[in-house]
């Protein structure tokens, strides 16, 4: 179960009000490669993992992504909270303001709302972990682009923290993948629906050898 610790994982802050920057940063809150997508993806994939290391890693990293989501929300909240209506109009946030005022909402940089289509939980552990590694790389790239867009040093150091975390998570998922390979290389009995080895065997007429895929 989850509890809440009344503390950010990193002292995130902003130097100055900047709603235009907030419009870009919010993509890491409710966008396709954002922290919400990451945490829900990992926390929902962990149920069908075969080895305890994978279940632990997905749980812990998923929980940490919720903490990162909080950090991104803090950035957006602080960038927008002192903005005047003129600032908001100049930043192109009119539409967002009409629906949400200065509140947070799960959208990407263009206002497209979050959808579960951003994540997948395929059930096949190798597929899931490979998707998680790709997700970490996508988040890393997004943080790099946000670092290019940002001119606020306080926001920069926070983004740099989150960027580095993605790299560390990628390393962890890579190690989980290796553990899964090791798990599957041992002779475990497993069952795949619809897979009938006998029906798939066929003889090679020339040599009499049996070919199995």
């Amino acid at each position, binding site marked *: 179960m989850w*509890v*809440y*610790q*009344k*503390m*950010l*994982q*990193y*002292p*995130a*802050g902003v130097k100055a009000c900047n709603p235009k920057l907030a419009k870009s940063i919010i993509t890491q809150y409710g966008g396709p490669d954002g922290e919400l997508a990451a945490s829900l993806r990992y926390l929902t994939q962990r149920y069908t993992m075969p080895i305890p*290391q994978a279940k*632990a*890693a997905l749980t*812990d*990293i998923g929980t*940490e992504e919720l903490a990162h989501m*909080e950090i991104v*929300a*803090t950035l957006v*909240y*602080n960038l927008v909270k002192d903005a005047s209506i003129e600032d908001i109009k100049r930043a192109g946030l009119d539409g967002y303001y009409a629906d949400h005022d200065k509140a947070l909402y799960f959208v990407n940089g263009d206002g497209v709302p979050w959808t579960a289509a951003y994540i997948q939980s395929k059930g096949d552990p190798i597929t899931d972990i490979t998707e998680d590694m790709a997700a970490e790389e996508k988040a890393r790239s997004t943080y790099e682009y946000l670092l290019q867009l940002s001119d606020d040093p*306080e926001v920069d*150091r926070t983004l740099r923290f989150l960027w580095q975390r993605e790299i*560390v*998570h990628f390393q*962890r998922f890579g*190690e*989980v993948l290796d*553990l899964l390979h090791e798990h599957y290389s041992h002779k475990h009995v497993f069952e795949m629906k619809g897979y009938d080895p006998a029906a798939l065997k066929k003889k090679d007429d020339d040599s009499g050898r049996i070919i199995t895929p």
Partner: protein
Amino acid sequence: MDPKQMELLRRIMETQFITVELNLFLDTHPSEERALQDFRAASRELHNLIATYEAAYGPLLNFGLGEPGMAPCWQWINDPWPWEINWRGKC
């Protein structure tokens, strides 16, 4: 938020970051003995820091996992909440 509280909270953040990183490392390297020792030491220090903070400023965890303290009112709801704290600069 007064500077002493912020300083203590910052130290808790740093120590907890160490335990989080070691936690993730140990998830995939469960038999790494040296990492486990380092984790135990960092965890002990974290518990001490959190106990100090909670005794002075109220619980950090909800649902009964944080120390409620002997203050006459429910301190969990106190401001500022984490997204309202104004941090400046690095360590």
